[in-house]
């Protein structure tokens, strides 16, 4: 069990966060750049000295600034996968992996390191220096190195962000496998909601140094409590001003024109979020019947095929995205420049403060 409570000022940022992760579980930290995600990892690992904090892991108190107690990083032994992997350039892959091993005998360390590399399918690179490896290979060596030291906690700082789309899919699957087998707490910093939801049991969203929302992926997607969370979970975010419209509804005057409705009551500037798959496309002259209350006129700006769906980029009063089936895209003759009307239900509309 990892439990951390930190209060730390760094430049313009004041980090005030508390998190706990039980063994065998992974907590994803998401948030805009500069929200303090990496700083939080560094404070846990001990590579940055906390100004005011209490951090404990498996009953051992690592940091208690009230008692001037702070273990050095080598005593905490967090497995840290750095954003740039931080492989030692002067050491071969197996020596990188063996660096943190506790075994004394060189032969045993080499065997163990090569076995770990084997597990990640790169045993043939055991003698290679990092400079000769691809990004995906380096990422695997970095992960193997962190695991080889039998870490108390696994800290992953955007471990797949530097990879191209192809190696990324594979790396996420491998990482998922590692995390499932790991009997330690893990913290993953990520910018990608799909990665967070597939790798972590829980997601904490950090904004301006504070955890503003915490929950599992579906809870975050269902009730985002900020524009960032809505955007992070893949929703379309529109900006506007809300006022009560009676009947349990809120009307939102969108910046740039247009009006949409949402359930609940709010006033003032809000972020309106709706998921792309909730948005329905219609021909420009169609008469809309049914329960959809939110209708906007829009122009198609892009059409991208994504596996079984088509993502349609649209410009209404503000840019938005809809996802439709290939069949619908064909029957509506969706193409760049086409004029359409979009609609969605008030109940599919979420409001959050901004």
């Amino acid at each position: 069990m990892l439990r951390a409570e930190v209060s730390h000022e760094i430049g313009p940022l004041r980090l005030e966060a508390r998190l706990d992760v039980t063994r065998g579980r992974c907590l994803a930290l998401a948030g805009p750049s500069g929200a303090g995600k990496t700083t939080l990892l560094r404070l846990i690992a001990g590579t940055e000295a906390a100004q005011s904090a209490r951090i404990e892991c498996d009953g051992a108190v690592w940091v208690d600034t009230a008692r001037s107690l702070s273990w050095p990083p080598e005593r905490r032994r967090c497995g840290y996968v750095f954003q740039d992997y931080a492989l030692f350039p002067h050491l071969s892959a197996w020596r990188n992996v063996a660096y943190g091993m506790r075994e004394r005998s060189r032969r045993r360390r080499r065997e163990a390191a090569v076995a770990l590399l084997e597990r990640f399918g790169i045993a043939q690179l055991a003698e290679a220096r990092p400079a000769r490896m691809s990004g995906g290979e380096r990422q695997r060596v970095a992960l193997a190195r962190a695991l080889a030291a039998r870490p108390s906690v696994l800290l992953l700082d955007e471990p797949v962000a530097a990879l191209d789309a192809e190696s990324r899919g594979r790396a996420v699957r491998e990482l998922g496998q590692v995390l499932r087998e790991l009997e330690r707490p893990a913290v993953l910093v990520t910018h990608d909601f799909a990665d967070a939801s597939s790798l972590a049991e829980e997601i904490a969203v950090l904004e301006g140094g504070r955890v503003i929302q915490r929950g599992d992926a579906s809870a975050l997607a269902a009730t985002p409590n900020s524009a960032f969370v809505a955007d992070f979970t893949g929703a379309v975010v529109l900006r506007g001003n809300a006022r009560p419209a009676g009947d349990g509804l809120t009307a939102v005057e969108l910046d740039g024109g247009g009006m949409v409705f949402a359930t609940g009551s709010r006033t003032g500037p809000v972020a309106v979020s709706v998921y792309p798959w909730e948005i329905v496309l219609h021909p420009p002259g169609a008469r809309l019947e049914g329960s959809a209350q939110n209708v906007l006129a829009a122009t198609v700006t892009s059409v991208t095929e994504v596996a079984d769906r088509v993502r349609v980029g649209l410009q209404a009063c503000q840019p938005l995205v809809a996802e439709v089936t290939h069949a619908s895209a064909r029957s509506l003759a969706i193409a760049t420049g086409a004029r359409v009307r979009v609609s969605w239900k008030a109940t599919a509309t979420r409001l959050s403060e901004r």
Partner: protein
Amino acid sequence: MRARPWFGPLLVASLALAFAFLVLPVVAIFVHTAPAKLVSSLGDRASTDALRLSLETSTIAMVVVVAVGTPAAYWLATRVFRARAALITLLELPLVLPPAVAGLGLLAALGPDGILGPALANAHVQLVLQTAGVVVALCFVSGPLYLLQAQAAFGAVERSLTDASRTLGAGEAATFARVAVPVALPGLLTGLGLAWARALGEFGATLMFAGSLQGVTQTAPLAIYAQFASDLPAALALSAVLVAFSAALLVGVKLLSGSRSLGLAAR
């Protein structure tokens, strides 16, 4: 735009002038006197003494400079503190001091009447007019070169590398030895090459502080000065050896800076 047909030739002419001016004296050292005479005059006692002394004193000085300078440079490169810039400037000062001033400073500090003179005398340490004094003078003028170069080399080591080493269980000393030094090694060796070249050519501070006693404090540059009036071929022969040595150091430094990508290639 109007063509300027004279500009290209101007560049070439400037380069030719610079080249001739800078290379001619070096070539002249080798061609002024017949090679056979150069070689034979190297057998001269004063010359062999001077070369041996230069080699010995500069080697000892480099051992001291590396042993003290490497950890000191690491400290400078990895700690952030308020007086850092001022401290670094003070450490750079010996680099720009006129050699005679450096020698006088050493006398005022470590000479018999110097600040630390009585203390050194109590400890039975004699520097002035002694070989040990030459080593002190060489350390003083070449130390800053190494220190600055080493500090830059350590400063260029990615923080994530040393952080990774720490999280993997290595303490600060082990991280220094196993990660920081190996990664900074090309830069450290460059610094060593530059400092060594500077030490081999040292003249003024040595003369002021240690004197020019054959076999004791008369290093190769001092011997060249002593010989050039009486025995030009001998002076030229010694010079030729120093040129060869310095050229080897320069080439070594160039090769090392070329391989510096070693430390960056992993990114």
